[in-house]
């Protein structure tokens, strides 16, 4: 967080959402009772392994997946479930998404000009052509591409450039919240830094708030202000990124952190990887709850674990 306000306003509130797919015997719960807030101006990280439900949460926020229960509030207004057309337009304008694979997420048969302005056409039908061109040119410049590129097709661009086009298409809507779903994992190592830097600079320039969904913890550690860890559809821990990486409480978080590959042979040679075994929790008699164990630090624990974690915290102080 840039240390701006005393209590920055909550831009997005996710309250106890559950997302289920299928029905009857085929029912599958992808996200179970997840709650968190995203404050204005921050980069909020959501990490988990494949299949943990992190993408589903992102998709639930932009209303691609419907929530089964719980609610999502945007600036205090409910945006999940049945909402008015007006609210829907507001969601479309203010919440946008950057997708993982820039090779798959751009229309191969459309020019960059159309790709970038597609949202614009939908949101402001009949808008003055001059304004649209200006908005596209500005978005392209902001992501470090030349306005001339508008007349080209996506296949003429490299992976990094295509991801920039994906970001430009988001910027043209002038959103407040951007959901970035693994925005750099499909990119080459030498290109990743460019895109990360671009995202950070746009946060300042366009005052964006990000929900950064990733499985790569080293990237999350570098870029996010707060991080939530998700395991099998449920959050297990949430804290300021630095605190989470320094003092992980939940055994799953610890296992995840211990497995981060480090580009330092000396560290790697002496690395001890912790293995997480869900059966270690004794949840049959004493189910876990989502508790705030210290200010701003949430963890999933039952009453026995709570005591244990509290002791751990006591030791650090």
């Amino acid at each position, binding site marked *: 967080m840039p240390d701006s306000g005393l209590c920055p306003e909550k831009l997005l509130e996710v309250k106890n959402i559950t997302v289920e797919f299928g029905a009857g015997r085929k029912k599958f719960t992808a996200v179970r009772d997840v709650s968190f807030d995203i404050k204005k101006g921050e980069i909020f990280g959501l990490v988990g*392994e494949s299949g943990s439900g992190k993408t589903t949460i992102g998709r639930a926020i932009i209303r691609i997946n419907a929530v089964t229960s719980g609610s999502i509030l945007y600036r205090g207004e409910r945006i999940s479930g049945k909402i008015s057309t007006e609210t829907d337009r507001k969601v479309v304008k203010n919440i946008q998404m950057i997708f993982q694979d820039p090779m798959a997420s751009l229309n191969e048969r459309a020019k960059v000009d159309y790709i970038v302005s597609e949202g614009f056409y939908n949101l402001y039908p009949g808008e003055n052509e001059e304004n649209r061109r200006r908005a596209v040119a500005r978005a392209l410049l902001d992501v470090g591409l030349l306005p001339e590129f508008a007349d080209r097709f996506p296949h003429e661009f490299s992976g990094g450039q295509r991801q920039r086009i994906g970001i430009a298409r988001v910027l043209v809507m002038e959103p407040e919240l951007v959901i970035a779903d693994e925005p750099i994992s499909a990119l080459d190592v030498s290109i990743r830094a460019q895109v990360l830097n671009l995202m950070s600079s746009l946060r300042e320039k366009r005052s964006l708030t990000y929900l950064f969904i990733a499985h790569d913890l080293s990237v999350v550690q570098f870029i996010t202000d707060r991080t939530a860890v998700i395991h099998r559809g449920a959050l297990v821990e949430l804290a300021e990124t630095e605190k989470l990486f320094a003092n992980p409480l939940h055994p799953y978080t610890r296992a*995840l952190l211990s497995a981060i590959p480090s580009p330092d042979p000396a560290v790697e040679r002496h690395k001890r990887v912790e293995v997480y075994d869900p059966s270690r929790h004794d949840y049959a008699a004493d189910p876990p709850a989502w508790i705030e164990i210290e200010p701003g630090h949430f963890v999933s624990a039952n009453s026995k674990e709570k005591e244990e974690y509290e002791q751990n915290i006591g030791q650090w102080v």
Partner: protein
Amino acid sequence: MEKILSAEDVVVKFTLRGETLTAIRGVSLDLHRGESLAIVGESGSGKSVFTKTFMGMLDPNGWVDSGRILYKGHDLARYKTERQWLGIRGREIAMVFQDPMTSLNPLKTVGHQILETVELHRSVRRAEARRLSMDILRDVGISDPEKRYNQYPHEFSGGMRQRVVIAVAIACNPNVLICDEPTTALDVTIQAQILQLLHSLQEKYGLTIVYITHDLGVVANVADRVAVMYAGDVIECGLCEEIFYNPQHPYTWALLSSLPQLGVKGEPLFAIRGTPPNLHSEIKGDAFAPRNPYALEIDFIRRPPCFQVSPTHRARTWLLDPRAPRVTPPAPIARSRKLWMEKKMEKMKEQDRDAR
């Protein structure tokens, strides 16, 4: 150290839509018995293509244009027929592929796929082959192999499936195992387990392993030696410590310092400008020169030779020429180099003291 495989000046070309492109531009690399060599590079740098030449697995539109690949006294670059390759493929050099989803046959049981390789490469009876397959399954860390033997790949998780792929590869008892991005499709916690498994198998079976990866974290974990590839060329090669703590080529510098792990929070990361070169057009001089902030004039004109930094470390950059100006590498590189040098000095002093 004994060389098990030695590539000399290998050039690989492809024809694509009537055009010829050079994917590997004169690469020389030795593989020592029992070591782990990591080949690092971005996609399109030629790391996969290069290792495919060891097994005769280039796509039909590609060929080894010149150079030699010596293995046990044979020049693999001259192999033409499938018959010749069958003596090498699997039996001598085996491969583990990136995606365990696509490299197993979904219609055959896991046990059958291992059994197949065992029967093909070791002349044993069915019952014996079955017993061997079970042993291999156990060796790759699959619990309850009797039950798992008769299951299909879809009944396995990603990490377990990759274990099966490894089992198939080592079932032929190869000397060299090439792992092409073995953990890229896996989660970090599973990745660590698979790397541990490969390490223990290496000791047990006396394997020489080539890791192909773009992940420098994996490299730091597994490699004894590292070769860095860029645009079809090995631009730097050395011991793991040498590459991580004392890199010489600006591309290696850039690759390392653009990692978020080495960045300072709140400051922009070191980013490499531009994109990798197009292999269709001829590359003049140093392929990295157009993206290289340290590029000298000569970098655009003549391809740099290999400069020897230490007996085990070489790099292809004009910066190592005695006539080149002295440059300071990016901050994270300079920092780790300084630490490394200090440690080295301390060690030398200690040895001095001990000698006295």
